[in-house]
């Protein structure tokens, strides 16, 4: 209750007093203290800190107001851009499957226009193009450009693979000189590939009764159930799209619903290659 409020109800005071006693008892329990220490050691041994996330130097509640100002600036800036030759492609693309409790990966630091970008964007109404092809409004990127591997390094840097898994098979599949793929689908392919490798781990661990590995894999799926992409839309604004990877709430059946038809020998790139 508000410590400065003189009109506290007796009932709430009793509730507060009982909580203080319970907290004191918990803190004074030596066995519990030892278990908490073990838990801390376990947590620090099994997870690792992420890189420092970008933090806004303001309370989050001010973000909508700032976003409105920025949107207005982008609209006005877009009007100016129509009358000026384009020199860059806006801020770089980012993607995330992070839940609210996790920081989004940092944008790739670039000095302006990405040399592997084509300046061509999909139509905002684009959707499914064929059985395994889809398109959206993001930029088409040159897969064979010498700087593209650096961009792929950046995308995969935001994702963790299970021990023993490698990005090499995916990187080989993306070695398509002269071909183009849209930025959103390039990101999505990395996220889906990582989900398949965690699916392999999950499936193997379940068979072997390795509950720690099952937990680790399920943690990945819960943190990456949805893939959010944000990048320039070619008109001075931002294009954002969300692709579901695994339906939530994530459980055994839903992992299987993703894993069985999408991974293994049937695994293929998503998005169109042109």
């Amino acid at each position: 209750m508000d410590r400065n409020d003189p009109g506290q109800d007796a009932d709430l005071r009793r509730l507060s007093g009982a909580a203080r006693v319970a907290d004191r008892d918990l803190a004074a329990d030596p066995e519990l203290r030892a278990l908490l220490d073990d838990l801390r050691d376990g947590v620090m041994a099994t997870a690792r800190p992420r890189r420092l996330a970008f933090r806004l130097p303001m309370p989050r509640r001010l973000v909508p107001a700032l976003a409105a100002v920025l949107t207005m600036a982008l609209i006005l800036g877009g009007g100016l851009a129509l009358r000026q030759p384009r020199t860059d492609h806006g801020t770089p693309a980012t993607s995330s499957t992070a839940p609210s409790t996790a920081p989004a990966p940092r944008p790739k630091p670039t000095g302006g226009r990405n040399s592997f970008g084509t300046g061509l964007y999909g139509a905002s109404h684009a959707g499914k193009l064929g059985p395994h092809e889809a398109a959206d409004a993001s930029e088409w990127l040159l897969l064979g450009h010498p700087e593209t591997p650096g961009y792929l390094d950046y995308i995969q840097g935001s994702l963790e693979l299970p021990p023993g898994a490698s990005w090499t098979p995916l990187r080989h599949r993306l070695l398509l000189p002269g071909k183009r793929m849209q930025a959103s689908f390039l990101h999505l392919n990395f996220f889906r590939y990582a989900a398949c490798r965690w699916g392999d781990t999950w499936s193997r661990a379940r068979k072997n009764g390795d509950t720690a590995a099952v937990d680790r894999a399920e943690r990945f799926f819960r943190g990456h159930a949805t893939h959010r992409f944000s990048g320039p839309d070619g008109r001075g604004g931002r294009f954002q799209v969300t692709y579901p990877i695994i339906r939530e709430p994530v459980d055994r059946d839903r992992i299987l619903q993703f894993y069985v038809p999408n991974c293994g020998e049937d695994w293929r790139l998503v998005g169109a290659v042109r």
Partner: protein
Amino acid sequence: MSPDLLAHRFEHAYRAHSAAVLGYLVRRTEPPEDAADLMAEVFTVAWRRVADMPPGDEARLWLYGVARNVLSNHRRSRIRRHRLADRLREHLSRSPRVHHDDARHDGTDHVRAALATLPERDREVIALTAWEGMTAAEIAVVLDLDPGTVRSRLSRARARLRAALADQDRIPC
């Protein structure tokens, strides 16, 4: 920031606030031993995001914010068992200190019952003030709200709690 410094910061915050965070989780889970898995999740998230953890006492409010998110995710889906939490879960399951039945003995069972009838956001501000002893300004940080909004929400929640308690008095035994 060096890895050693990050580890030091995490260990310091854990030592200072882990019991309080456990109390926060125990009071909001049924059965209370489920708090062990949530505790493992809260501090796994906190360790991963330790670079974002603010220094000093703000770390306490930041941890409550993480705990609130974890609890909210837990309520939306089934609980995820943490192997790391096995022993803590077992300890909590046999600890008389954490069981909500204690409310019968400490005379707060009727307040808890009235609290349970309130909308979630009213219950949250009342619980943070009464159980966690937070001021309106501290709650504003945890809930990411304006302090004025918290104060008005708190005032409304108290009125509703008083009404719920009065309703209990009208129910014939």
